[in-house]
């Protein structure tokens, strides 16, 4: 198993190099790992997998009911959702099928619900149903006053985005994929039918190249001489409310979409918090992952209407993610046979859901582009540590604690993370290289105190293990 974060890169050429270890790149690496004959490298600029957009989204496993019918995105979301739901069960990724309600707040929105139901049908999603105000308020007793009805979409689920990305990467690495972190591709060229990827850590050679660089997919495309699209970051700011707010909401509460986008939602998270967001702001700075006073106050304004009591609860966290918009209502996935190259661009606001289907599609495109993947095998399943509240956490399992008391020794009190879980994460296949990575793997320091109680203790455990 090879995970590197420094030092020179292997000289021997790889069959395939994937640039970008977001949820999409990791899924592709995992799909290629099914072919033991291939030498595959996953190359990531940052010090961990999933540090780009994949760590900062709304964490919904979409049905694709509102996708553009007939688009590639619609198909991959539909297929990906099914694949990820099954994969989550196998791998211990927390998923809760809470369902969504698209709430109509005025007559105009109410009138649009039947059309949304029809659109869902065209996307082969047939379980939607229009509910009246009585049923709506029975389902969501804390909903703000004035809602006229809703479209119920029972198949929409919530999922853990961090565990998903990490599970793909872990499984890929365990099956022979080399993960190179801290390895930004700054230049690319071709020589003797091979790609030369020039990185901070030297040159990496590969016969085939997959561009899964997310927000930077256009930049990498240009390094390879293509000008097919431009990525415009569309920022989404989100507010995470305290776990004590969780009983206020049962479904994902969506607004009726407008031309301006999907709008602001209120949704539970698998960790037991409540999310409010995201904003939609077109920017040009691909590093602008900060929150703003205007953004947060706009969210609170909208949240007050949807779920007034939510605003009385404490805020646990605020974050922002950047969607890779390309001015085109679909993904930008394309094979360039002459260059032995596949671009996976414009994976906008559904990439988490579609990841497994995108990966399967990319493997086909690579074959079209001339890659002979050789024989395939089944992958050994991975079993990820459970971060979800709907499933037993280690501190709730008498059997685990009896076998190993470290699971009964809590370090992070707000999130009830035990020393055993932190130890396991630090010794895992892809160990965290910082406290943020440890947080995404265990939830340590992710709770309401943000480290007031446990910050120093968690840091001490991390530093002890990485010394």
């Amino acid at each position, binding site marked *: 198993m090879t995970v590197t974060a420094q030092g020179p890169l292997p000289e021997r050429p790889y069959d395939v190099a994937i640039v970008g270890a977001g949820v999409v790149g990791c899924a592709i690496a995992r799909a290629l790992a099914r072919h033991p004959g291939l030498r595959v490298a996953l190359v990531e600029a940052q010090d961990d997998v999933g540090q780009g957009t994949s760590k900062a989204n709304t964490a919904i496993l979409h049905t694709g009911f509102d996708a553009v019918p007939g688009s590639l995105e619609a198909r991959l979301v539909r297929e990906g959702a099914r694949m990820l739901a099954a994969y989550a069960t196998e791998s211990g990724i927390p998923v809760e099928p809470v369902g969504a309600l698209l709430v109509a707040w005025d007559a105009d929105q109410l009138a649009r619900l039947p059309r949304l139901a029809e659109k869902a049908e065209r996307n082969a999603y047939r379980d939607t149903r229009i509910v009246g105000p009585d049923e709506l308020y029975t389902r969501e007793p804390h909903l703000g006053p004035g809602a006229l009805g809703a479209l119920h979409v029972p198949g929409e689920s919530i999922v853990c985005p961090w565990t998903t990305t990490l599970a793909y990467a872990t499984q890929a690495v365990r099956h022979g994929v080399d993960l190179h972190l801290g390895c930004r591709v700054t230049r690319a060229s071709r020589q003797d039918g091979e790609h030369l990827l020039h990185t901070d850590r030297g040159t990496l050679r590969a016969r085939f190249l997959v561009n899964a660089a997310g927000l930077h997919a256009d930049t990498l495309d240009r390094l390879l001489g293509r000008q097919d699209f431009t990525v415009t970051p569309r920022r989404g700011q989100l507010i995470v409310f305290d776990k004590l707010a969780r009983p206020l909401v049962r479904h994902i509460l969506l607004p009726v979409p407008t031309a301006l986008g999907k709008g602001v939602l209120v949704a539970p998270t698998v960790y037991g918090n409540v999310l409010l967001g995201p904003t939609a702001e077109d920017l040009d700075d691909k590093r602008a*992952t900060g929150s703003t006073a205007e953004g947060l106050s706009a969210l609170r304004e909208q949240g007050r209407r949807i779920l007034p009591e939510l605003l009385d609860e404490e805020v646990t966290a605020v974050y922002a993610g950047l969607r890779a918009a390309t001015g085109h209502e679909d993904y930008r996935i394309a094979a360039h046979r002459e260059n032995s190259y596949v671009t996976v661009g414009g994976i906008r606001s559904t990439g988490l859901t579609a990841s497994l289907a995108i990966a399967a599609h990319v493997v086909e495109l690579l074959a079209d582009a001339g890659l002979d993947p050789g024989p395939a095998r089944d992958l050994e399943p991975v079993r990820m540590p459970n971060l979800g509240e709907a499933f037993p956490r280690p501190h709730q399992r008498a059997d685990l604690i009896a076998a190993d008391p470290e699971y009964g020794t809590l370090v992070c*009190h707000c999130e009830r993370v035990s020393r055993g879980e932190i130890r396991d994460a630090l010794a895992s296949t892809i160990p965290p290289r910082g406290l943020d990575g440890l947080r995404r793997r265990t939830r340590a320091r992710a709770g309401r105190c943000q480290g007031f109680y446990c910050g120093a*203790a968690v840091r001490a455990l991390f530093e002890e293990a990485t010394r």
Partner: protein
Amino acid sequence: MSGVRRVDVLVVGAGPGGLAAAARLAAAGAGRVEVLEREQQAGGVPRHCAHGGFGTWTHPLTGPSYARLLAEGAARAGAVVRTGVTALDWAGPLALTTVSPRGPEKIEAAAIVLATGARERPRAARLVPGTRPAGVCTTGELQQAVHLYGQRIGSRAVVVGAEDVSYAATATVRASGARVVAMVTDLPRAQAAPARALDARLRHGVPLLTGTTVTELLGHGRLSGVRVRHRDGRSAVLPCDTVVFTGDFVPDHELARRGGLVCDPGTRGPAVDGALRTSRAGVFAVGSVLHPVGSAATAAREGARAAGAVRQWLAGGDWPGAVPLVVSEPLRWIAPHRVTPADRHGRYVLRSTEPLTRRVLRVTQDGRTLDRVRVRSSLPSALVPYRTTLTLTARWTHRVDAKGGPVRITVD
């Protein structure tokens, strides 16, 4: 989880409040008194307050010595203080589920005392915009990092707040070898004893920026600075690699909330009457969870006071219904938050958003005036801090009608 273990009194939290209650109860022969503490050491927040300011005038102590003294006192009196045990949730009206390295357990008691303390609101809870770099913490984390673990923090810190705890943070930053770039408060002046504020400014050269808000955190990876805005509209960036958010306490009320105890909208902690009884028979609450945040001595005093009420309850006392106390602007909260006509001793703590020196507090119930009190301050009037804490003696409580409406405290 097999079966339920029974004790007489279960105290949650081994800070000054919980330990003082346990010591009193055990000494008075209240039976098995067990204190649950989720940390590996008893003592609560004072464990990591390496500075003085604890104990009594005649016997001043540092936080850690004070924590040890209280823990030893409770143990000597016969209370069982169990560390590394977390109370997770309720298993019945007077029963809790817990977890420890020995596994899960259900414990039932004749009385439960919640002494779970308070924490400082971290950056996110204050909705301070910007990036999410490393180098952002609260005083609680800072003190533990420096005093308990000897960890390095950055080299230049901005301290947000100018209360006592902010000056404690400033001292901790200095103790770690780092420099305090500035203290920043949105209020017009420091909220600490004037000598303390003066000492920080003159002896240690720490500038205090009043009327100033932190509007953005800057930097990717590591904090590179904070953007601040003065009330007059000017804004500036203070370069720093560490920012400490101090004060702005919020009670750790999770158990109270999960148990469905009535909480006070002002303090956000469980609402108690003068005998520290919550809305549920047999459940008491003491310390910072009631009113963030008084001194450790106040928490300990409340613990001792609750011990008396717990013993009455154990002896078959009743659980009188209490009438809510309601404050209005500029008062922010009052604690205790409920009153019974029998609440004869003790005093109420009030927090106001503006100075009230020489103004009159009026206590009324259903339009009937129960008391009028002119505010005296314990500090000379010119030095009364902006966010004022004042006290009200309970001399009017016998006039309360137990069946009447809420008792209102207003400022004339």
